């Protein structure tokens, strides 16, 4: 699962969806891999429009990456290098195996062989 996707997923438990704590999930025991992808300036700019910055910071800190600035960079005026760094973090960094925990209900989700599993046991579905 790409780090980009951590910005899109939340706890799948219905009763959590109204809680502001169901996103972002807390990431732990993550094994990361790097997947090369050619850089495209317009694409990463358009992707950044969708990004919730505080949530991205929370997840990157969870996985031990403190390279991102506190404030969301201004995408229209920043250096190309900033965009390249974002491309690296969001699109080239994959969680191969790991765990995701809901900060509201503590439900644990697994990522195995890059595939996150959000299926719920019957009593939560």
């Amino acid at each position, binding site marked *: *699962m790409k780090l980009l996707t951590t910005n*899109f*997923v*939340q706890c799948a438990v219905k009763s959590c969806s109204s809680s502001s704590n169901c996103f972002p999930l807390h990431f732990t025991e993550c094994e990361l891999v790097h997947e090369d*992808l*050619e850089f495209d300036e317009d694409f990463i700019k358009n992707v950044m429009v*969708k990004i919730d910055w505080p949530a991205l910071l929370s997840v990157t800190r969870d996985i031990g990456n403190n390279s991102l600035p506190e404030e969301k960079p201004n995408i229209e005026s920043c250096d190309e290098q900033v965009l390249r760094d974002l491309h690296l973090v969001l699109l080239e960094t994959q969680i191969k195996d790991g765990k995701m925990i809901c900060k509201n209900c503590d439900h644990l989700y697994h990522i195995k062989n890059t595939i996150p599993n959000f*299926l719920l046991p019957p009593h939560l*579905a």
Partner: protein
Amino acid sequence: MKPTPLTAACDNVYEPFEDSFFLLDCLELEEPVLRGFKAPLVAEIGCGSGVVSAFLPSLIDLYIPMASDVNPAACTTTLSTWEKNSNTYNPKLPEIEVVRGSLLGFLRPNLVDVLVFNPPYVSTSDVPKLEDYDQEDMRWVDFALDGGEMGMEITNIVLENLSRYLSPHGVAYILLCANNNPKKVVENVEARGYFAHKISERRAGREILSVYRFSRNELDQH
């Protein structure tokens, strides 16, 4: 006509069939609409073999590809199918994110720009229950066809959640068969403030299939 993607071996996964190929043709007709989005999040529900998801790179330049399925074999097969075709893709296109999960219940609201779903649309007495299947089960393919009452039990959940899933300009492409009573489906979706547009209709054996586009905003017909 764009070439049909190669698919990986479908063990315990729905093999691309007439419905899958009809959906590809309908999506191809929608190329002008699809190309209007900027870096859209495109999510396929129930990706099965991955044939539909693997076709989309021929219609949209750069986007955020995502797919879900409850069937664990469908998830790995979709990744293999994507891989098999990736030499034909734009090298700047990220690899598809395949998520094991039910529908799009794991996504934050209002993110999906393009939703695609070839649902289990066959009318059956029940829909299979997840708790009756374990990871290694050889019957996961049951989920591909069994649509419960009027074949609409799963599709209805998606239709009821359109306003949760879709972004403000989002569109959903959903395949229906005649037994689903498309007329009634359209009425229900329109009653919720959506526009419905039939892309095309095709006879496939005993079935008459149609693909509809549902959107919050009215789009140009072409």
